[in-house]
């Protein structure tokens, strides 16, 4: 009979949330779901914060409490390195939930159970998980209870056959974490059952009928039965690929060319798992940097999926962009690069992107556009999207081909805010990316401006909208649409007024008066 080892990392959602933000673990923090505390750490408990407490109560007891939203994905993601670390010591790890894992206890290999537990704890502390507790027992439930009674970074071993005495002494609250456990515990208290030993003395059929299948399973465990097989996982395959350069290379072209075979290997490795990659992170590490630091890293999306040539293209663009003069990139390559890593971010089964029997138009278009991107660079090909906003320029956005639009403002017709101050339709057919300087004068050449109350100082009479065009008389005009934007920002925001001006030649313009300075923003061409 194999023994079971359970590793428990208490308050895992809080640990994961703090690690995600790079905060130390001793800060009082809590994770909230539906405005109630769903998990809190020791720092918070010291102030009296408890599970199930309302948010305002928790914050009134501990004003400096770090508040995090519950993100189950984040917990699972943060637990992945822990699983991998334990898997290195002993394969066949069963993740029970984020923060709790079970494995078949290593017997003599590490020199006994306490020694193995110490090794696991040491490995986890190395990962930055300070609070981990290990329990070893004959089966899963007992081992978990043992882990919950262990000291931090320590282990609690229940000798073979000693499960029943250990469990019988536990209070009934121990089963609170089971599904529906809370109701069962409440009922047991009202029935006068104080310890699990009291429950064990009941008849099995009574327990099942009264408390449900979960407690019936605990009852069987208490009777020395109910061992369950661990649902161990297969370690996920390593899909990322990297290439090292010795000596390091400094030319973007050479690096891309040398990474070609790695890209082939990356795509082939995915294909073996019947996967294709639609989102990839490409990292280039410069010489002399430690493993943790990456010179230039970027996530790329592909409208279909990445082939080897696409990856090499992306790598080239990334390196060219990073070494070029354009600021605002994720990092710049200043030293020669000695390692390039391709890491899949999103993979999908290849069947999702399988080609149709006769090929498809879309695919042809993708290829043609990829060619243009190869000529001009990734950002040169864009697709237009509409978004919410006031000025015509705010109401549209251009998204680089293959990327998902991010940070778009919602439009009013999609249920977004109403955007008061918008110019009513028709929309101008030309929206200038960079406004032209314009000039507008009133009678006797007086400059036209908008006063504090949003009224024009004098009616516009003559204007010049195009830098190359001449002056002409105003045939009709409408406005002003005064807008005070971003006034809450420290920079002071923008206070502009928009006008529609029709010239005597019949053409219409959208002009902006920004503190007395006129700009041509769009043309009704």
């Amino acid at each position, binding site marked *: 009979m194999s023994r079971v080892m359970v590793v428990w990392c208490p308050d895992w959602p809080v640990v994961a949330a703090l690690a995600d933000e790079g905060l130390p673990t001793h800060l009082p923090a809590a994770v909230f779901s539906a405005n109630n505390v769903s998990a809190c750490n020791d720092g918070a408990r010291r102030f009296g914060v408890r599970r199930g407490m309302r948010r305002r109560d928790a914050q009134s007891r501990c004003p400096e409490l770090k508040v995090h939203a519950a993100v189950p994905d984040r917990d699972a993601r943060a637990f992945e390195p822990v699983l991998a670390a334990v898997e290195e010591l002993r394969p066949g790890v069963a993740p029970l939930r984020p923060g709790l894992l079970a494995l078949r206890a290593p017997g003599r290999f590490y020199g006994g159970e306490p020694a193995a537990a110490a090794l696991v704890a040491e490995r986890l502390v190395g990962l930055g998980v300070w609070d981990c507790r290990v329990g070893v027992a004959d089966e899963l439930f007992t081992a978990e209870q043992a882990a919950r009674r262990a000291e931090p970074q320590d282990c609690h071993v229940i000798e073979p056959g000693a499960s029943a005495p250990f469990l019988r002494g536990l209070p009934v609250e121990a089963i609170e974490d089971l599904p529906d456990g809370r109701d069962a515990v409440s009922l047991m208290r009202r029935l006068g059952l104080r310890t699990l030993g009291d429950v064990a003395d009941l008849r099995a059929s009574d327990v099942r009928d009264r408390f449900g299948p979960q407690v019936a399973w605990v009852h069987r465990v208490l009777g020395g039965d109910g061992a369950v097989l661990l649902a161990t996982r297969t370690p996920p395959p390593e899909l990322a690929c990297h290439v090292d350069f010795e000596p390091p290379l400094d030319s973007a072209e050479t690096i891309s060319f040398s990474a070609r075979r790695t890209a082939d290997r990356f795509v082939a490795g995915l294909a073996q798992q019947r996967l294709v990659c639609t989102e990839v992170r490409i990292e280039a590490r410069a010489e002399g940097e430690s493993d943790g630091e990456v010179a230039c890293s970027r996530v790329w999306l592909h409208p279909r999926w990445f082939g080897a040539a696409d990856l090499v293209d992306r790598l080239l663009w990334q390196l060219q962009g990073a070494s070029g003069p354009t600021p605002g990139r994720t990092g710049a390559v200043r030293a020669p690069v000695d390692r390039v890593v391709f890491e899949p971010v999103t993979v999908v089964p290849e069947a999702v992107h399988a080609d149709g029997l006769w090929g498809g*138009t879309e695919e*042809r*278009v993708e*290829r*043609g*556009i990829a*060619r*243009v991107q190869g*000529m*001009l660079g990734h950002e*040169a*090909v*864009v*697709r*237009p*999207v*509409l978004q919410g906003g006031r000025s*015509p320029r705010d*109401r*549209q956005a*251009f998204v680089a*081909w293959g990327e998902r639009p991010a940070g778009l403002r919602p439009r009013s017709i999609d249920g977004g805010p109403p955007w008061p101050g918008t*110019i*009513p*339709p*028709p*929309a*101008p*057919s*030309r*929206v*200038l*990316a960079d406004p032209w300087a314009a000039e507008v004068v009133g009678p006797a050449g007086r400059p036209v401006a908008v006063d504090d109350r949003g009224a*024009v100082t004098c*009616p516009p009479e003559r204007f010049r909208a195009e830098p190359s065009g001449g002056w002409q008389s105003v045939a*009709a*005009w*409408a*406005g002003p649409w005064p807008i005070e934007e971003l006034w809450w920002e420290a920079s002071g925001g923008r206070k502009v007024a928009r006008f*529609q001006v*029709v010239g005597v030649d*019949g*053409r*219409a313009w959208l002009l902006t008066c920004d503190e007395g300075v006129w700009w041509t923003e*769009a*043309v*009704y*061409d």
Partner: protein
Amino acid sequence: MGTPTSTADTIAQLRSRMARMHDGVPQLALETHPALAGLVQLRAGSSYAVDSASLALALMAGPSRTGSWCAVVGVGDSGAEAAYALGVDLDRTVLVPDPGDQWLEVTAALVDVVTLVVVRPPGRVPEQVAGKLAARLRKRSAALVALETRPGDWPRCEVRLTTRAPAWSGAGQGEGHLRSRRLLVEAQRGSAPPRRGALWFPAEDQTYRRAEPAAAPARVVEEAS
């Protein structure tokens, strides 16, 4: 079974028929915006010149609303909202706002894959460049719309659309806002007399259509002469 001579005759006949088909190029008609019906019919393999961004968008809207891909090259100031209002499917639109001096290569690459390319040439286009692109258009069954800065920038176009006498209504002296525009469009096809038509671009209800009454073709010819 025919004799060898009759077989050869048949082959020759078939060849001549095929050659005729190649010469005449029965060009595929592309969907055209209903407002422009009677003025211009888009055909795959032809190029068109326009002088107004909204007319270019209207020409693009025809194929786009039937699910074809369109591309816009060299137009850095396209109004996406106006395009959407005209019926352009923005999900099937590709923009290359600033191709620089590679505009010809980019246009040629996009002609290979999309149905209609709108291009604003950086200046006067040499005759031979336009000729090469026209051959490519015929081969790939795509259409090209040149958005000219000055008239005559794009030589050898099938139809040249020019706007005349735009008249906006809705704006007064500070009150109201632009609502509708009546536009006279002149379609010059080779040396034939131009066709004219008045359009609401857009009308009061923000639709784009012919202004009533639609000019009868006979009258148009009279006007032109």
